[in-house]
């Protein structure tokens, strides 16, 4: 039985999360506490000699969190590169904001499930191929590649979640990142939506 419970911090977050959709996702993510409490950190169960646990929802979320954290840092590099001009640079900052909101939500959900959120590295620790980012086009292409990869990653995560609310939340993030990808392709002068399906 899962009632929609809106924790106080979700309501508080409304003030600085601009999209109503994201707030709805947050609520969906945190609804159904019993089911959420049932999933736990597989690694903790994998103590020596014990039976291997299935890949848990916490681990799937944490892996997604790691990729979001890298995307935030990548947009930082892009925005600070001086290679993006005004309207496009603003776009990059907006998209970075979305990735921050995704990361925030993923980290909170990992904690809620009793896990430890993966920690962001410093920008330098990601070893971005900055030697290959010489023009605004290079930066946009780099961002588009990350967004396309992120869409695939969420698509690959959705069928694995034991908790369907988490699958829905991942679908919500996937949709946002697919829009980023399309807009970046448009900015690159490519067909914004190249296919009927993402893969």
């Amino acid at each position: 039985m899962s009632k929609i419970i809106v924790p106080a911090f979700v309501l508080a977050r409304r003030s600085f999360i601009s999209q109503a959709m994201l707030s709805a996702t947050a609520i969906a993510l945190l609804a159904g506490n019993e089911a959420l409490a049932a999933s736990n950190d597989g690694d903790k169960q994998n103590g020596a000699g014990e039976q291997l646990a299935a890949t848990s929802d916490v681990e799937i979320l944490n892996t997604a969190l790691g990729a979001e954290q890298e995307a935030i840092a990548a947009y930082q590099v892009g925005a600070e590169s001086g290679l993006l001009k005004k309207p496009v640079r603003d776009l990059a900052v907006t998209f970075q904001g979305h990735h921050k909101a995704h990361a925030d939500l993923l980290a909170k959900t990992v904690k809620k499930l009793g896990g430890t959120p993966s920690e962001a590295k410093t920008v330098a620790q990601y070893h971005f191929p900055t030697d290959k980012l010489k023009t605004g086009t290079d930066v946009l292409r780099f961002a588009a590649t990350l967004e396309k990869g992120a869409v695939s990653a969420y698509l690959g995560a959705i069928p694995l979640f034991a908790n369907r609310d988490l699958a829905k939340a991942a679908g919500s993030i996937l949709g946002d990142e697919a829009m980023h990808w399309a807009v970046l392709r448009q900015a690159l002068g490519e067909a914004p939506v190249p296919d009927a399906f993402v893969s």
Partner: protein
Amino acid sequence: MAAMGLPAGDAARGEHIYDRCLACHAIDRDRTGPRHAKLFGRRAGSVPGFPYSAAMKRAGEAGLVWNDQTLDKFVENPTGFIPGTRMGYAGVKDPQERADLLAYLKQATQ
């Protein structure tokens, strides 16, 4: 064994399949997932300093080495092949797409 039944792969097509891995992997640097450089012939879970799951490390210690057959199985269903792996990804289900991907990886990871 499926070894003989693996379709021939096309590396050029495989490069585009590898796009699906690019949120987490690169050939020559560790990201959310480990680097793929020198993947073929490498023991599972053996890139120094990469924080693998207990499950992946144990698979390597138990003798899992990456080659055409083991990669085909892992990429088809990562969490089925190595339960508890941190790679929360459903897999590439199409045998031809996997063959293309592996053909690309074989070239790109040497």
